[in-house]
């Protein structure tokens, strides 16, 4: 009840935090998709390169977020800035996105690939007209995992200067205010559920109805 009261009384402030939260994630995911999808495409034909890149990515994935933030802010030029926060989130998206791009591009039915080649489609055209459209559901799944992860990890970015939903929890902690902690936790969770919904919509737009529902 106190949490609800807190929520209603501080709608403006909470809205601002939520917006900051969203902005950080949007910046990070846009960069992550552009960079990591490109990397995934570049390594798609080399098992050795893919292995190397994925090994680095999974190493980064196992670095705790507080530690990664700590390492990044210690790098001269980054410091306690939004760049550090964005970079951390982008790095965490490396594994799910590259892995899914690589797996999905190479998972296209060999018969489909052979038919495409046999009809005289160029490598480039096969990539853009056949492989990527067919890989979209799996790539989207990787992006979705990344975004959901980012929502949680972004809360910890309050310790390196972000003013997002993490502020509610951190302030609640400092002031022993369970209402603030609960509001923060609930909104972050709702965020994650909302992202699931968003991605379902996105899938309807981006994925051909011929293959919709094939990847889970």
């Amino acid at each position, binding site marked *: 009840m106190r949490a609800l009261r807190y929520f209603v009384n501080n709608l403006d402030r909470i809205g601002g935090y939520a917006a900051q939260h969203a902005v950080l994630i949007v910046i990070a995911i846009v960069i992550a998709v552009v960079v990591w999808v490109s990397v995934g495409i570049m390594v798609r034909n080399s098992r050795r390169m893919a292995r190397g890149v994925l090994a680095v990515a999974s190493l980064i994935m196992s670095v705790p977020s507080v530690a990664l933030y*700590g*390492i990044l802010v210690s790098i001269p030029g980054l410091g306690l800035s939004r760049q550090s926060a964005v970079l951390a989130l982008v790095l965490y998206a490396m594994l799910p996105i590259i892995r899914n791009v690589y797996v999905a591009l190479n998972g296209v039915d060999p018969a489909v690939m052979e038919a495409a080649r046999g009809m005289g489609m160029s490598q480039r055209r096969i990539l853009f007209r056949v492989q990527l459209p067919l890989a979209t559901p799996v790539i989207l799944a990787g992006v979705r995992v990344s975004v959901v992860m980012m929502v949680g990890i972004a809360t910890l970015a309050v310790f390196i200067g972000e003013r997002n939903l993490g502020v509610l929890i951190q302030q609640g902690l400092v002031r022993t205010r369970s209402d603030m*902690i609960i509001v923060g*936790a609930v909104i*972050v*969770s709702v965020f994650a559920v909302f992202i699931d919904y968003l991605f379902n919509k996105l899938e309807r737009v981006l994925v051909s109805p011929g293959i919709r529902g094939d990847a889970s």
Partner: protein
Amino acid sequence: MNWERLLDVVREEGLQLVVQHLELVGISLFIAIIVALPVGILVTRFPLDRYAPQILAFLNTAQGVPSLAVVAIFLPIMGIGRVPSLFALTIYALLPIARNTIAGIEGVDPDVMEAARGMGMSPRRVLLRIELPLALPVIIAGIQTSAVLTVGTATLAHLIAGGGLGRLIFSGISMHRPEYIIAGSLMTAALAILIDQVIGLIHRWISARYSG
């Protein structure tokens, strides 16, 4: 940045904090395993097994609650210190293990189960000889995820006076002492990577034994 001061920090406080950190991780992980395994198994038994998919979905969503919130939420009730820290860490560590235990057992080939029952094995025997061994690789993977997460979350224990490597990082940030931040972060990262690799090794060893 001054590398000598960094080494000083590691020498003076590092080892002690690493031990503290490992205690937090080890104790909470241990409790989490002995709680989550039976609970997970119970969920796959009658009459709870009907709700297994919903419970799995709930556990997945619960995993989305930020670690900071989990650590923070028990503060008003339990206060600060080691015990509340261990409690929060344990709760957080439970989720992946319980989830993978359920998923692992549910994922056992129904044909294999039917064959086992058809040969007249008791439910207890089916569980111990068939289901658990076959689900083991998935369960270990859950423990691996949980361990890595807990190493990270344990840094937050410092925020409720639970000790651990978080102290170096957070005090480093608030006091603008990069050597503290770097020392704490690198040690935490190294710890997480080490634990990840070790459990990963165990995981591969067990998987290889089963598939081979």
